[in-house]
């Protein structure tokens, strides 16, 4: 009987457990998390702060998940040392667990900004329930909040606090918001919406220090100006939790390096999720694509391989979707291409807040931005993922009525790429 140990009980870890159980009903699965809270989705934390959902709403798996999958769950316990040779993991409660197959899905931690005053009361970053509760506990005493960083999580924080009726000011060093996700045209449309809804965006300036006696009173910017505020949320991106693997001698770069089967440089030790660096299909390189769907897919793939069902990883790409005050946006792959050989197709109607952009190279879709009209995002997405030559439909790609019907013939002709039942079954009568 195999013994599986999973470190990290979030998107990647739990998805790995499910995949193992698809194959192996009997093996012993132990999952270890240093967080006390179980089965919750950290993506929903801004919805909790915005009072859109209650604490129960944070759960993304049923309460009986561990029981049903026959998993031994240890929450509130940290894995502190890995011995690859002896195949053991030491825990901070003095115990140790042995494994035949191990998954390291330790995720990521918010980056610090490294400025004076970061330790003051009222300064937060958002990654865990504990962080969210900290923010919520101070909401009532807060009139104005400053968000440092214009990334997705920073803006989600801003949105949530605005829904709570707070004054919100977002400080962005770059010349646009959402610079990892969108080009400037799309970002500007969203910024206009945020501004209209009462969120102030200050661009091109970094915060110099956070001021206050014991607790936050203001943020001083580079140009000497000050934002009076009672709360600061730092949204400067994340860094991977890779020390546990690194100290054991496993190969790491910006994340834990995964091979084609999500295995690390150590045999029988696998990795998945935000901490993992795996194949990126848009660039062909290895990178961390730190988003929920990728964590779930990688966890799933790792789980299959751990249970002996050899499954190569298809590769992932950056992708995200969100909605600010009713303005939906999707971004997939490379949206701001650098280098030569790229071609961009765009449609823009600022008044209707419609923006569509497709980035091509060699007639293969490499990136997509959709604002407002996002219904067929996944159709473009599958063309990107399968690296399909779109020449036959290039002039129709951005038509209003573009949808799955327009790629039916491609799906049929490229059965090598669209091998899954769900695709084949749509072309039986074509």
């Amino acid at each position: 009987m195999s013994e599986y140990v999973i470190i990290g009980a979030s998107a990647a870890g739990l998805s790995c457990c499910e995949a193992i159980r698809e194959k192996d009903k009997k093996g012993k699965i132990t999952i270890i998390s240093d967080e006390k809270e179980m089965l919750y989705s950290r993506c929903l934390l801004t919805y909790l702060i915005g009072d859109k959902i209650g604490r129960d709403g944070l759960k993304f798996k049923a309460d009986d998940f561990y029981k049903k999958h026959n998993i031994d769950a240890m929450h509130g316990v940290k894995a502190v040392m890995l011995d690859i040779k002896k195949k053991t993991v030491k825990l901070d409660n003095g115990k140790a667990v042995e494994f035949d197959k191990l998954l390291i899905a330790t995720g990521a931690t918010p980056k610090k900004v490294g400025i004076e005053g970061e330790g003051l009361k009222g300064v937060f970053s958002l990654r865990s329930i504990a962080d969210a509760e900290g923010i919520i506990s101070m909401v009532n005493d807060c009139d104005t909040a400053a968000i440092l960083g214009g990334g997705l999580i920073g803006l989600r924080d801003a949105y949530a606090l605005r829904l709570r009726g707070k004054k919100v000011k977002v400080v962005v060093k770059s010349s646009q918001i959402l610079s990892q996700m969108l080009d400037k045209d799309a970002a500007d449309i969203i910024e206009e919406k945020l501004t209209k809804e009462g969120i102030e965006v200050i661009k091109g300036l970094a915060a110099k220090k956070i001021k206050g006696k014991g607790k936050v009173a203001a943020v001083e910017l580079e140009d000497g100006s000050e934002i009076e505020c009672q709360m600061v949320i730092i949204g400067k991106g994340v860094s991977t939790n890779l020390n546990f693997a690194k100290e054991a001698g496993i190969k790491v770069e910006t994340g834990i390096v995964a091979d084609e089967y999500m295995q690390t440089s150590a045999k029988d030790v696998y990795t998945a999720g935000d901490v993992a660096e795996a194949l990126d299909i848009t660039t062909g390189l290895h990178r961390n694509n730190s988003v929920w769907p990728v964590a779930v897919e990688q966890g799933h793939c790792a789980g299959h391989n751990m249970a002996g069902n050899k499954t190569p990883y298809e590769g992932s790409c950056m992708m995200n979707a969100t909605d600010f005050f009713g303005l939906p946006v999707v971004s997939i792959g490379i949206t701001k291409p650098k280098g030569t050989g790229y071609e961009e197709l765009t449609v823009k109607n600022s008044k209707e807040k419609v923006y569509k952009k497709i980035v091509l190279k060699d007639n293969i879709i490499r990136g997509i931005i959709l604002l407002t009209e996002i219904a067929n995002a996944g159709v473009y997405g599958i063309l990107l993922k399968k690296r399909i030559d779109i020449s036959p439909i290039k002039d129709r790609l951005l038509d209003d009525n573009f949808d799955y019907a327009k790629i039916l013939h491609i799906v049929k002709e490229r059965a090598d790429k669209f091998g899954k039942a769900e695709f084949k079954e749509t072309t039986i009568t074509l």
Partner: protein
Amino acid sequence: MPKKNKDVKIFCDITKCVACRTCELACATEHSVSKDVYKLLKEDEQPKRRVRVSATPNESISIHCQHCKDAPCVAACMSGAMHKDEKSSATMHDKEKCVGCWMCVMACPFGAIVRDVKNRIAVKCDLCPDRDDYACVAACPTKALFAGTEEDFKKTLKEKRAKKR
């Protein structure tokens, strides 16, 4: 076709679809409060159809959720709203859990998920839980739509074609 059969989904016979969009109306009606096409016009909330007919110059097809095995929408859903039904293996959506993040819309390769903008939730084919058959299939005047497994569908096609000859 008994409801809880495994792997049932809706198939469209492209050779028969004439893009009349009756399935869209039937779907919207089935998912309204009154389930009555005349009354539903007066309902506060206009119901959302979960199928969509799309025509190209050469053919037309009624696009439905494929109830994919390793469904990308389920992997992408960060709230657990989108899930696989254990018994039927259908892809189901729990509107109570949904937060309207549109991750599923981004992930579905068929564009089979509709946004209910007013309630800010995703909406998709639920295989008509309130009736024994399927509203779109029952309504289709050309019998282009079919509910069953892939095997059933292929068998029926064969039979139909044999009859024609």
